[in-house]
């Protein structure tokens, strides 16, 4: 009995391929209902277009490289927000690891916390929190991110939503005030008389001001979440990932490009009312989302067309929420929303299999 339960678990956590194979098995039947029951070997011939590198790299190695790529942003957050930022990151990472361990222990699965995926979730979650966020809130978010966002779906590779963003969304709904209580970076003098700080996006949304110097936003000298303020640090990490070949350029550049083009339309029509594309690119979580969350291997489409649809719709959504929604920032919900469509996109944008014919009616 016990072994039956986990029969779907892959030996190696190569979820993507496994998931696709599952789908392929289904698809093959749909495509050609006249065919005899497709044998297991026949369906294995159908491979996904990308990413092929998964087959030659081990998950821990990829994950540890992602951690390395996050180091510049970590360093920038500590520089701008002090040791409190490092404390938050450590708390999130430890809480994520502990939750993963606890779940795998309870479900009597092999303990795989050393693969690094929980470390990344923890780091990314911390990156989306303001520096003054309370420790208990960070722990709660981490437990939700790993517990509900990942392990309840079946662990690494089976999750539909990006766990870090799901944790952040849960915290946003749970502690709406604390998640939006920002502090000024310590490099800024202006904060002394003000109780709480306003991010560039909050200023743009509620006060109609977007006069924060682009250079400050590029370097990170503004209020915001730990890993969101410094665009340059995130771009460095992203380029490292690209150099290592872990991310597909379509995803981050497509997302950022859509944001830039779509916001440029409004800016061109009325530059007094709508912020410039550069503002949109460097404000809020656009950079972090584009390089580290849109590119999440598990929760982004595998086909080229699917990836284009994914990033373009997500980019438009992010700008629409920012400009016309009730919230100042739309990156998180835009990515989570499109995550939900990934299985659908994978299914319907699959390239034609060689020799495939449409099923004939009758």
């Amino acid at each position, binding site marked *: 009995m016990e072994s039956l339960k986990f029969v779907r678990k892959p030996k190696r956590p190569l979820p993507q391929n496994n998931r696709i194979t599952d789908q392929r098995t289904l698809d093959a039947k749909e495509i050609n209902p006249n065919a005899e029951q497709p044998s297991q070997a026949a369906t294995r011939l159908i491979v996904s277009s990308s990413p092929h590198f998964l087959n030659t790299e081990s998950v821990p190695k990829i994950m540890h490289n992602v951690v390395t790529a996050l180091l510049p942003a970590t360093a920038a957050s500590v520089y701008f927000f002090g040791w409190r930022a490092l404390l938050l990151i450590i708390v999130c990472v430890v809480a994520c690891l502990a939750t993963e361990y606890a779940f795998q222990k309870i479900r009597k699965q092999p303990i795989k916390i050393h693969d690094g995926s929980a470390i990344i979730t923890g780091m990314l979650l911390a990156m989306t929190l303001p520096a003054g966020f309370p420790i208990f809130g960070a722990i709660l978010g981490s437990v939700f991110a790993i517990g509900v966002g990942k392990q309840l779906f079946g662990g690494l590779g089976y999750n539909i939503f990006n766990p870090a963003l799901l944790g952040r969304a849960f915290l946003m709904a749970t502690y*709406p005030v604390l998640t939006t209580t920002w502090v000024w970076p310590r490099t800024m003098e202006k904060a002394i008389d003000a109780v709480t700080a*306003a991010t560039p996006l909050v200023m743009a949304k509620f006060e109609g001001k977007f006069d924060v110097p682009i250079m400050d936003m590029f370097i990170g000298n503004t209020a915001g979440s730990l890993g969101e303020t410094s665009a340059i640090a995130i771009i460095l990490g992203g380029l490292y990932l690209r150099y290592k070949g872990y991310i597909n350029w379509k995803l981050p550049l497509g997302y950022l490009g859509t944001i830039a083009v779509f916001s440029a339309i409004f800016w061109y029509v009325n530059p007094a009312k709508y912020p410039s594309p550069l503002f949109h690119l460097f404000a809020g979580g656009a950079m972090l989302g584009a390089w580290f969350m849109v590119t999440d291997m598990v929760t982004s489409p595998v086909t080229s067309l699917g990836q284009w649809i994914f990033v373009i719709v997500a980019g438009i959504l992010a700008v629409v929420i920012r400009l016309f929604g009730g919230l100042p920032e739309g990156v998180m919900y835009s990515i989570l929303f499109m995550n939900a469509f990934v299985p659908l996109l994978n299914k319907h944008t699959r390239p034609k299999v060689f020799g495939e014919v449409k099923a004939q009616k009758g």
Partner: protein
Amino acid sequence: MNNIVKMFLNLIVIGALSGIILSGVFGVADPMIKANKERELKEAIFVVLPGAKDFKVLEKTVGQEKLIVYKGIDENGAPVGVAFKADGGGFQGNIGLMVGLETNYLKLRAIEVLEQLETPGLGDRIREEAFKDQFKGLEVKPKVEYIKYRKPEKPNQIQAITGATISSDAVVKNINRAVEKVVANFPQEEMTRAEAAPQAAPKEAGNGK
């Protein structure tokens, strides 16, 4: 054939019985429901016009709209202020306020939230005393404003609730809109004129209609 007659009879009897039951229950419940609503209205008026012992209903039709204000009077019939409803969209649904204004149309006396559907724990903090108290004695000229993150600096400013700017903004806008309408349509003399002193049993004398 017989079956069809039976079906008709079934439905007619059941419909008639339920009609009788409902009219009976409605006859008992409706006066109580009306009394509840009236008591609520009265309580809200007395909250926003401290010192009022009774009120008089003034009505005016402006275009399509019917404006109703409640002129609060003390035990001698001297006006203590004017109360009126201010409705408008909030973050999720209508925010209904009762606003008390001084008769000289310069300052608010108090406000009360009658209905709201704002986010619990965030927007619905507009019901908290700490937020409502900010409106006591607030100047309405040129108009009510809100300020974020800081203590109010001007006599016509309140501090918005952190994290619930939209709800705070909706309250302020509702008040401004309603105050503007009342000031434009009810001449001040009508408000400062003394009324007949309320009768000995003020509880029953509330309805000026």
